[in-house]
């Protein structure tokens, strides 16, 4: 299935990683990192993906980019089913979809100059040579508000925020239409975070980009996203418009997650209800039966323990997977 309005369509995506043991590396279990999710991203929109560590948000992003073997389910990019592409076709397709990493310190090769880091994808995909190549790299520097004279410097000479700009410029170098931003600001200081968020928003407008914005910080995600999907233990529990998610959250997990985020204004914050979840997220190797969230849910009833809730549309494209929501 594909819809002209959608750039990305994910259908029944599963990504299980084997757990092996012993000398023969026999498979003893599966980590169900992503466990049957479906969603779409419209052209030109930002879909936020939030959830706590280990909920499968990063794995989902990487599945869309086909960075694993053993992905089950279908992922359509602009109507093309990526799982049916030959390796060579996929290689060309990759130019359209890029990734920005969390840690700007770990994701840049320390022995390459900033100019080479940013220009490498242009060479790999044979997009430009000679003077044209140099012009393009200089243009990319300006696009992310770095000075082209910094081209010959090495990563260690840049601050965290500047390195993230280099990572963004590298992703933009092959002129993609879709970018997976995986926690792009979580390693940065507050004032630098705001600079990078603003930069990403400006670039999206100017270059008509579509983003999947993965982060654990709900305030950041809400600020940048048009719609937000909330993940818990490999599954999407709620997906809706980002204003609606804050004004009218339906899933008990979303409600608890929102209430755990303090608002930097003591007068406003004091008026909010606080729900403190107990316990930790269960292991994705043996997720609880029924609704994944039931052991931590204060409202769980019998059906939650046995039956998996489906993601249902509650009207106005507000989807939620909970037996209690009528």
């Amino acid at each position, binding site marked *: 299935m594909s819809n002209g309005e959608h750039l990305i369509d994910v259908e029944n995506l599963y990504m299980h990683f084997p757990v092996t043991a012993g000398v023969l590396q026999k498979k003893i279990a599966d980590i169900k990192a992503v466990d049957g999710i479906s969603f779409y991203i419209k052209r030109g929109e930002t879909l936020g993906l939030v959830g*706590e*560590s280990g909920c499968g948000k990063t794995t989902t992003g990487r599945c869309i980019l086909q960075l694993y073997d053993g992905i089950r389910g279908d992922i359509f990019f602009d109507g093309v089913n990526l799982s049916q592409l030959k390796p060579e076709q996929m290689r060309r397709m990759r130019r359209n979809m890029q990734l920005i990493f969390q840690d700007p310190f770990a994701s840049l090769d320390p022995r390459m100059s900033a100019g080479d880091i940013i220009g490498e994808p242009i060479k790999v995909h044979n997009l430009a040579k000679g003077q044209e190549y140099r012009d393009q790299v200089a243009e990319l520097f300006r696009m992310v508000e770095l000075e082209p004279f910094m081209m010959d410097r090495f990563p260690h000479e840049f*601050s965290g*925020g*500047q390195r993230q700009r280099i990572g963004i410029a590298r992703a933009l170098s092959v002129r993609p239409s879709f970018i997976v931003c995986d926690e792009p600001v979580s390693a940065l*200081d*507050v*004032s*630098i*975070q*705001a*600079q990078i*968020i*603003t930069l990403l*928003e400006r670039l999206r407008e100017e270059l008509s980009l579509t983003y999947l914005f993965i982060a*654990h*910080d*709900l*305030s*950041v995600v*809400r*600020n*940048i*996203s*048009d719609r937000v999907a909330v993940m818990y233990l490999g599954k999407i529990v709620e997906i809706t418009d*980002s*204003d609606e998610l*804050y004004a009218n959250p339906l899933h008990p997990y979303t409600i*608890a*997650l*929102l*209430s*755990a*985020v*303090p*608002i*930097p*204004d*003591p*007068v*406003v*914050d004091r008026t909010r209800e*606080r729900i*403190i*979840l*107990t316990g*930790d*997220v269960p292991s994705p190797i043996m997720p609880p039966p029924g609704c994944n969230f039931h052991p931590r849910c204060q409202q769980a009833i019998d059906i939650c323990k046995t039956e998996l809730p489906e993601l249902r549309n509650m009207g106005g494209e507000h989807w939620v997977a909970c037996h209690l929501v009528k």
Partner: protein
Amino acid sequence: MATTTDEVVLEVKDLQTYFYTQEGEVKAVDRLSYHVKRGESVGLVGESACGKSVSALSVLRLIPYPPGIIVGGQIIFRGQDLLQLSEEEMRGIRGNRIAMIFQEPTTSLNPVLTIRRQISESLELHRGLDKEQSHQETVRLLRLVGISDAERRAEAYPFQFSGGMQQRIMIAMALSCDPELLIADEPTTSLDVTVQAQLLEIMAELRERLGTAVILITHNLGVVARYVDRVNVMYAGRLVETAPTDELYGNPKHPYTIGLLASVPRLDSERKESLRIIKGLPPNLSRLPGGCSFHPRCEYTFDRCREEVPQLEEVAPGHFRSCFYDADKLRK
């Protein structure tokens, strides 16, 4: 909020902690003064390298020498200047009367000792309990921080716990000697929000119950708004603004504080409400600009800011700031 009294537990006066590196003298903490009362929770906020952690480590005299050294000031804890004590006397205070919780529980716990061994060490050392008593006490502390099945889990090793659980253990350990002052340095930064909420609630409850004074160091302005009575904002090693929490958030009077508050995305703000940006980068501490350290990034800078270092002055009761610009003309 806990009941605070006027009893001052800790008073930091003109603290100067410098580091001597190849790049030259680094004034990590420069003439910092603040105090914490009994049962009060004080927040130290600012971005990386603003000196918030160094100032906390200075209180416990844990600055590695070389390269760091406390070159001036006083740290008065219960009427006693900690900087005048011998190393031996200091050991009687650390972990006993002043406890500290660090950001990374994984690196702060000893991986090869059971949880019981690690907690009972300080109980036996500082409180003089025998083996049996300290065992009982360990179990009690683990229950206090919400670890179920404490009896059995006391015998487990750190790797058998999640990050959130390890941080609970750190809190249990910090509380083991009923400290008068607890310093928490980014205690929840590496944890998920729901776990962060659990831990901060535990800490708030214990403060209420035991009257412990708390210094909470964090870059998270939301956490500060929820859990702190008074906020100290630091920039480039100096205190730039200090006020009771409601006053600081409702009425910020330093351009840096205003900029910081405007640059945090808020859960309750309209989507796509654009963030206001503080331009530029935090300064390199070994090459600080002259005058006010914030002037190159400040939108209100005028001549005086480049030449003179502003001192803290009171703008409202209990509200101090260091800035030359007219407080009433600042844009919020």
